[in-house]
């Protein structure tokens, strides 16, 4: 490629608080127009913002999750601009003193992507447009929903790095309970700043900001499109304009948003209604201690300590609840490989087929651990274990109860089985004769006859051993 893309990201993530960031309205997705609104978040005159402690806590967690420096002192500023979805005509954000700075995440290929800052801010409302009447209607339900904005340095040089970073950020935020990171619902929104420069150059080109990217795939397609678009401009001797472009998923292209009549001058200044926030070292330690194990740490544990394959480890950690379930199960029965296998193959299949989540499961991790132990201890056969799991999945019953009720318990009594085998052989003298004459195929038939006579609890290995012995 003749051109090298240079990419930086701005990621907005909605915080999983109970209330909004500056008022006590419920922080929840959707709702009918202006039903989750109060004088504060609708900007009525005389009202004042009240900072939510939970939002500060989650922002600090986001910082810890991305190896940022979380600051003892952070402060809020006003960003002034007029738009009908912003009732106060200023957004309260952190400009001069963000809560977190200087983080990083290692992406595929081992490269470090630097995070410049993470700051807290409020979301704006939603506009519904009516083309027929030529109006826009403002709904303030989303006004004051707490956000963090994660700003990276322009360290990305490929789509793969960007996608890996976004995947990792989403996963870490989910693990930390900071954000549910659903790009398609808009609870995590990624804006891409992209420019290109000739390969070998060190001087960045003019960048475009891409918006409306609501999936990893869209991010990839938009970046590819933009690289080509900018390359074409440069190849034709043109210059790239600094502008905001909106990605259209149906066409796979980006279009410039109508440029504002004037350059933005946000006139930031310290928010006089909110005193700066002091996080003591003790508060910081307490918040840090409340952080769950991060996915990258789990990955290392699974691959290095548990000896799981990288692909399996990646699959398990990609869903925190699934991974939590796994961890609980291996605490009871440290058979890392077998538990991983049954979860990734059987359990995953049942979850997918029934479109259920781990939180819907009717049985506990300990039940699963017991089931695996029953199988490895030859209390039930491997095939029976699969059947038992399905019944556990549907009913929530205990594995041992299911095994007993359904006669899955393997009969390991050699003397009893010996009689059955002898009886079956005497009833099938022809087959026995045929086997001894070299027709080894009839072994399977004889196995089947013994299993049928012995019932579901028959231990296949025991039967096989006895049959082999008696057919000699």
């Amino acid at each position, binding site marked *: 490629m003749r051109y090298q893309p240079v990419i930086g990201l701005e990621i907005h993530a909605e915080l999983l608080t109970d209330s909004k960031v500056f008022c006590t309205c419920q922080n929840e997705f959707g709702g009918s127009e202006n039903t989750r609104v109060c*004088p504060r978040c*609708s900007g009525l*005159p*005389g009202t004042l913002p*009240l900072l939510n402690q939970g939002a500060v806590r989650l922002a600090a967690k986001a910082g810890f999750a991305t190896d940022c420096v979380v600051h003892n002192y952070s402060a809020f500023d006003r960003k002034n601009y*007029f738009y009908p979805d912003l009732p106060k005509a200023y957004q309260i954000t952190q400009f001069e003193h963000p809560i977190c700075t200087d983080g990083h995440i290692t992406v595929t290929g081992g490269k470090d992507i630097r995070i410049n800052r993470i700051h807290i801010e409020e979301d704006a409302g939603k506009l519904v447009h009516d083309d027929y009447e030529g109006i826009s209607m403002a709904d303030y339900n989303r006004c004051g929903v707490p956000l963090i904005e994660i700003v990276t340095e322009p360290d990305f040089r490929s789509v793969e790095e960007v996608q890996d970073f976004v995947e990792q950020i989403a996963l870490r935020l989910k693990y930390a309970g900071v954000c549910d990171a659903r790009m398609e619902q808009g609870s995590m929104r990624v804006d891409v700043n992209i420019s290109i420069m000739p390969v070998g150059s060190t001087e960045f080109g003019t960048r475009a900001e891409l918006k409306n990217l609501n999936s990893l795939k869209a991010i990839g397609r938009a970046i590819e499109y933009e690289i080509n678009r900018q390359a074409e401009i440069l190849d034709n001797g043109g210059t790239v304009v600094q502008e905001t472009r909106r990605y259209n998923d149906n066409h796979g292209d980006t279009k410039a948003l109508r440029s504002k009549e004037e350059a933005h*001058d946000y006139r930031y*200044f310290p928010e*006089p209604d909110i005193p700066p926030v002091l996080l003591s070292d003790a508060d910081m330690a307490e918040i840090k201690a409340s952080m769950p194990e991060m996915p990258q740490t789990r990955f290392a544990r699974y691959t290095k300590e548990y000896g799981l394959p990288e692909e399996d480890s990646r699959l398990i950690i990609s869903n925190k609840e699934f991974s939590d379930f796994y961890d609980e199960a291996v605490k009871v029965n440290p058979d890392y490989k077998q538990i991983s296998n049954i979860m990734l193959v059987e359990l995953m299949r049942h979850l997918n087929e029934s479109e259920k989540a781990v939180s819907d499961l009717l049985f506990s991790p300990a039940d699963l651990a017991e089931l695996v132990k029953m199988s490895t201890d030859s209390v039930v056969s491997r095939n029976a274990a699969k059947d038992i799991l399905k019944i556990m999945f549907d009913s929530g019953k205990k594995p041992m109860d299911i095994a007993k009720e359904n006669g899955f318990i393997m009969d390991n009594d050699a003397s009893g089985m010996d009689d059955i085998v002898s009886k079956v052989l005497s009833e099938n003298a022809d087959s026995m004769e045929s086997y001894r004459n070299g027709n080894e195929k009839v072994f399977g038939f004889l196995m089947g006859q013994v299993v049928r006579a012995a019932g579901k609890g028959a231990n296949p290995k025991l039967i096989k051993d006895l049959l082999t012995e008696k057919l000699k």
Partner: protein
Amino acid sequence: MALKKLRDMLDKKEISAVELTEQYLDKIEKADKSINSYITVCAEGALEDAKKAQEKIDAGSANAFTGIPISVKDNICTMNVKTTCASKMLEDFVPPYDATVMEKLKKSNIVMLGKTNMDEFAMGGSSQTSYFGGVKNPYDLSRVTGGSSGGAAASVAGGLCAAALGSDTGGSVRQPASFCGVTGLKPTYGAVSRWGLIAFASSLDQIGVIAKSAEDTGYLLNGIYGYDANDATSSKKSEGGYTSLIGSDISGIKIGVPKEFFGDGLNDEVKQAVLSAAEYYKKLGCELVEVSLPSLEYAVSAYYLISSAEAASNLSRFDGIKYGTRSGLGDDYNDLIKNSRREGFGNEVKRRIMLGNYALCSGYYDAYYKNATRIRTQIRSEYKEIFEKCSLLLTPTAPTTAYKIGEQENDPVKMYLADIYTVTVNIAGLPAISTTCGYDKNGMPIGMSLIGKPFDEKTVISVCDRFERDFDKREAAL
């Protein structure tokens, strides 16, 4: 009549709350046509308040404020009662909630007579910029009341309420109190909740009290002070008991006289009156200390830059969309809000918004806004040093007495410079009181101010009260 006396009469049933309210409403009806101190008179609501108050009095469960008729500045939100900020922009705005101060006073069954006139959005020192017409001084109807709480001060001076709630961002309680011959108290920043006070400059605004005496201001402050979870800048440091030091011996108290407050630009009659007040205190055994606030020369500029910057941002929400005047003009969003703001705001408000955006905009921020906040830090530290040498400061409230309507309020520069003696108190967040200390040759009241340490309203009130007891006060001849 003193609030304490009114309380006594109500409790002894020498007058009923309804009779008292009717007396005030009658007087408003008669006199306010000429003074124009009220934008909205709540006759019905006040009588209802009074009836409920009387029930409480009759049941023996009255407290300090039950049945006391007050006026409320029209930038303090009152549930279901129009709150206009004296602006066309909010001429029909009805808040769905009460300011914290109103919530507190309503619980005590205070009687709200109405909402008082003011400079539009509290920006001004004359009370002539009101969309509802200017306020006239009860001492001389051809003169201004000062502002921005001119309606509040005039309603007290004219006997159109027992006491008043105002607001003070750069002198808006003290200066009109001075011009109208009454007492105005601006509490420490954070002493009174700002929840429900329609913001002008958030870091400087404070609700204050205007009354007939220092004692009355303390009496009413007792009902409105205190930490409020709805206002993150309100403080837990206030202790109340604001009249508790009244009557105590003030001898030995050190009163600072900052020399910069008595320099060029101060009217001679005002200077003499304030200096004789200083002599009076000296005679009572107070120690006068000469102190200095070297950065006073920067104060007006710093104040106007900070307050206008905050105002530009605070007033951006007025676009005609959610509330307030919505223009019939404008085909697109931008034109609609520009026209609404053009129609809704008066000239002084527009100037402040322009100045505020000048201070904040790219290329000017560091030289103007940022430097103004540096000056703010400097002034605060100079005050801190001063208060190591004395407990109070004595200063003039304004360079002049009330001037003739039309004389200077149309010259913004002259108006701004006249705020020199009041703005540092807001910049430093201090408590201060203004009371009358003399009359000029035209019989207009002269105001002096006592400035106290943060959260030391008690001392300010008691030292002011001591002066008022021996001062021969003239009532406005209405």
